[in-house]
């Protein structure tokens, strides 16, 4: 049980670092926004593994839900204006 938890945490942390690198150095903006949201999603699973379900819910709702939506909204608005 304990080794399973440790193994899962290591896999999640590595995935988090990789998605964070993609988020800051990716080519396309939409992929960068999506991977920034993915970092928050993996972080919320991490919080769940560390027995903090309340923090995990906050992270999932605000970090990966609202923020990603907001970034896409602003991205669409910026693109719409540059087309004019």
């Amino acid at each position, binding site marked *: 049980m304990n080794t399973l938890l440790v193994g899962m945490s290591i896999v999640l942390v590595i995935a988090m670092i990789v998605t964070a690198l993609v988020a800051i150095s990716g080519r396309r903006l939409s992929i960068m926004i999506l991977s920034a949201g993915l970092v928050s999603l993996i972080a919320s699973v991490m919080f769940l593994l560390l027995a903090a*379900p*309340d923090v*995990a*819910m*906050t992270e999932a*709702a*605000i970090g990966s*839900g*609202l923020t990603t*939506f*907001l970034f896409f*909204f*602003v991205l669409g608005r910026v693109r719409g*204006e540059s087309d004019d």
Partner: protein
Amino acid sequence: MIKRFTVLLLLVGLATIFFSLALGYVPDESLNQTARYYAENTVSDTGATNIVTAIIVTYRGLDTLGEVTVLFLTAAIVGLVLTRGAEEGKGKPMLPSGELLSTGSGLLVPLILLLGVYVFVNGHLTPGGGFQGGAILASGIMLILLTDPMRHFSHRLIGLIESVSGLVFITVGILGIVLGAGFLDNSLLPKGTLGELFSAGTIPLVYSLIGLKVGAEFSSMLLSLSETEGS
């Protein structure tokens, strides 16, 4: 060149700090004094099964008031900055959103709103609470806005929900000072049976109010963002 060197130096410094912190970490054998008090006495003091909620709403209620105030200030400033020129670009028609998005949001929005209400009403029993539930409510509103950016929401109604729940929240807190042991003391209402919906004194009431307030604040921020045209 100098910039790269500085970045490298900063990284090495951070790595040293975190590495020494990780080397010197010794896990605690037992809970410290405050944590032990909360773990042992929360159920008998407040009647809430979720200790985190009991700490946030009752033991540390003043801090929660501070958090809600910070969020209120943020929403007010966003509204103040962004509502200039809100009515200008109304005439420009936008492309209708896709079939997939509109059907999916019609199906999902009621479920998301229901989940948000569930999360903050059951905050004293299950993980979650006002802040999480409010954020979920606002993400439902966000989905509606994504589907139909021109849709009009009543700012007056949202402001009314926000201010009424804030007022009732502070009134309950001050009633706790007058009638009970201190700010947000939850002995105003009966504790009820442990684990039922209407139990734990004022905690469900206060957390529902916080949920409505947070949801209204986030929604008003999103609305003023979406209503600003080319400023």
